[in-house]
């Protein structure tokens, strides 16, 4: 009889939700009872909204338990593990019966995330059992040529998953064609887009897949050294990568004469970023590895000619590398059969914001945004109205509800003015103000601009000032036109992707939500009731209990009323700070 397996999802999101406590509890129970089960850790299976997750795989099948705390863990231990009695109330997924969360999985195809939430990421043996390091063995043993490897990658149609969408095979070919004594291969794990966490999931859940992708890449382009540039905000990903690299080195997948092939030398290290969004740009990233300020360099020369330390370098994103072993093992066709004509394969998205099923999903290209949000994502929280979805982070844009039938592929998304980006999908409901969102992103890009190009450095600042003014009710006639003019100037006169795309959030919100800008500017109203300075605060006499908390906290003494009497806000003294609203325990402050 096979041992019962118990997997606890211990990625950052699981840990934040309390999975460590659950794991420790189960471990203590197992030790106390000397129960013969295999208790293991695993990465993120994507169902972040049900964290912490515990999966039990016994001889009857698999059962994924969601929202488990210590108490529930004890129940699962006592009932399921000791008496084989399934605790059906907590099961969120099982291969034996239907559950209400099944829609989250329908339509998902897991290629990049194939092992996330399945294997123990800190154990190379488990990766090997799941077809790990077979692709590189097949290449080396079968003496498959470098050209052939590159051709397979090209044929698969995979395009850069970091957001640029440049065909990976082509990039490899350029790097291969540039002969040099030393070449570098770099993995961009500087996932700086706020609202995106696909790469973190992957690195925490299946670091070996990325490493194998890098080894295959190094073989294809003749690179002898690799760097994984990972942002320091992901301590767990860095830890697991380092464990994985050590294990791979020990097993002979890294180092000299890899797998016994004379002359195939490749080694790899993790370089911790230091907190700069612009370092996601490839030339800035290389400057940062060299120990300099992460400022982009002029192209040409492209990294494939003169990149890191002036040598030919190839740089791909985490998700791209994770797909590579699968493609090489199963053939180009296994990947290209999914997707649309110009965008092949699958893409991982991070679903966040006002959505019921927040988490990460992997879907074939070509699925509509609406299906992702309403089928997999379970719709909008609290039954509110879907307003827009933000794709591509600070470089992307907001796609409005009426364009939700847009399919996800690079070209269709670009046509809306947004970009595919790395896969962050922030869903917004009717309570989100689009001008405020544009302001939020400009605040971000303005702060993150490296300062090299004047238009990006100063232009984003000026745009932010205008946007802030609009959200504070000081908007002027002509502001929208000025924003547009600045936007195009910045796009045209910036060296790198950060500047060239920084105005996108503003341009798309003006394009699709111009009426909201106009309401702010002309009527001094925020239709989403989001911009504090444009709201009128009044007290609802039916729910006010006269507790005096609002009056005590009002910084301008604009609230009158004695204890146990209905209070009243004097509008001439109110500065719209929102203090009364946040302090009232009886929801008696009305916004309009």
């Amino acid at each position, binding site marked *: 009889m096979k041992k019962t397996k118990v997997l606890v999802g211990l990625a*950052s999101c699981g840990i934040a939700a309390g999975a460590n406590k659950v794991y420790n509890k189960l471990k203590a129970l197992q030790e106390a009872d000397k129960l013969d089960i295999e208790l293991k850790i695993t990465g993120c299976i994507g169902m972040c909204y049900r964290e912490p997750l515990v999966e039990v795989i016994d001889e009857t099948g698999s059962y994924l338990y969601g929202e488990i705390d210590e108490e529930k863990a004890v129940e699962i231990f006592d009932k399921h593990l000791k008496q084989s009695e399934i605790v059906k109330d907590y099961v969120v997924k099982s291969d034996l019966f239907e559950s209400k969360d099944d829609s989250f999985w329908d339509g998902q195809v897991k290629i990049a995330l194939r092992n996330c939430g399945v294997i123990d990421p800190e154990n190379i043996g488990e990766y090997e059992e799941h077809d790990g390091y077979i692709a590189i063995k097949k290449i080396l043993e079968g003496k498959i040529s470098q050209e052939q490897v590159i051709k397979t990658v090209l044929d698969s149609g995979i395009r850069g998953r970091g957001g640029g969408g440049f065909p990976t095979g082509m990039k490899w070919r350029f790097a291969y064609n540039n002969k040099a004594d030393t070449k570098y291969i770099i993995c961009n794990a500087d996932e700086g887009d706020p609202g995106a966490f696909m790469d*973190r999931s992957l690195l925490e859940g299946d670091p070996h897949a990325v490493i194998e992708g890098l080894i295959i890449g190094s073989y294809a382009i003749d690179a002898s050294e690799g760097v994984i540039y990972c942002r320091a905000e992901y301590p767990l990903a860095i830890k697991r990568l380092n464990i994985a690299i050590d294990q791979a080195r020990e097993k002979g997948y890294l180092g000299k004469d890899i797998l016994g092939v004379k002359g195939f030398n490749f080694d790899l290290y993790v370089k911790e970023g*230091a*907190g700069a969004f612009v370092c996601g740009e490839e030339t800035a990233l290389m400057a940062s590895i060299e*120990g300099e*300020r992460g400022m982009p360099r002029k192209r040409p020369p492209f990294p494939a000619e003169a990149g890191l330390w002036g040598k030919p370098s190839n740089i791909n994103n985490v998700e791209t590398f994770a797909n590579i072993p699968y493609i090489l093992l199963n053939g180009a066709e296994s990947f290209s059969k999914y997707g649309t004509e110009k965008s092949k394969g699958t893409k991982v998205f991070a679903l*966040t*914001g006002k959505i019921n099923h927040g988490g990460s999903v992997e879907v074939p290209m070509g699925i509509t945004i609406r299906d992702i949000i309403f089928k997999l994502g379970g719709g909008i929280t609290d039954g509110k109205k879907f307003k827009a979805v933000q794709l591509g982070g600070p470089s992307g844009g907001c796609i409005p509800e009426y364009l939700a039938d847009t399919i996800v592929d690079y070209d269709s998304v670009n046509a809306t003015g947004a970009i595919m980006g790395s896969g962050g999908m922030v869903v917004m409901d009717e309570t989100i103000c689009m001008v405020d969102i544009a302001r*939020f992103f400009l605040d971000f890009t303005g702060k993150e601009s490296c300062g090299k190009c004047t238009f990006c450095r100063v232009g984003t600042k000026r745009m932010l000032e205008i946007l802030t003014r609009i959200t504070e009710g000081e908007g002027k006639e002509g502001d929208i036109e000025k924003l547009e003019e600045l936007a195009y100037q910045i796009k045209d006169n910036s060296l790198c992707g950060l500047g060239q795309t920084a105005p996108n959030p503003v341009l798309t919100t003006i394009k699709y939500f111009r009426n909201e800008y106009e309401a702010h500017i002309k009527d001094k109203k925020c239709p989403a009731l989001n911009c504090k300075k444009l709201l009128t605060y009044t007290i609802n006499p039916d729910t006010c209990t006269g507790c005096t908390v609002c009056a005590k906290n009002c910084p301008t003494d604009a609230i009158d009323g004695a204890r146990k009497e209905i209070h009243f806000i004097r509008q001439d003294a109110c500065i719209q700070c929102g203090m009364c609203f*946040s302090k009232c325990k009886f929801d008696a402050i009305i916004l309009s």
Partner: protein
Amino acid sequence: MRVKRILQEKEAVIQSSVDLTLIDPLIEKYKSKKGNLIPILQGTQDIYGYLPKETFIKISEQTGLKLSEMYGVATFYTQFRLNPVGKYIVKVCHGTACHVQNATAISEAVEDALGIKDGETTEDRLFTLESVACLGCCSLAPVMMIGDETYAKLTGNKAVKIVKEIKIKESN
């Protein structure tokens, strides 16, 4: 005279509070490696919690890295701090997902509770408040991180409670 005064100041600084021998192994490890500047600064910050001025001078003297370059890098990346920080760094996430789930309310609540603004440190050197771009726990927004612990699905009250619990624990 002026020159002398500056020199004296420099010496006075070097004799100041931080124990500079702590970074010796770090300098030894990275001294001759290319691209060593950022790892050295990161290592130094791990030791002291920030980058003391004296360490710049020592690192520069022993590795040959230029002070101007070091300062340039230290001020470019948000990770580096030039001032001492509190024992606990409260990082309130202001990524997009947290923003739409009202991260501002979390920051305001913590600011109120600690009596400091973003980027400041409490007088007792217990807390530093920082707003950060994205912690990557977007589906559990809004979140904040204290030490290695991430707190998810916060409200203003929850956040204040967490901070106050640490305060109580520390005063005992």
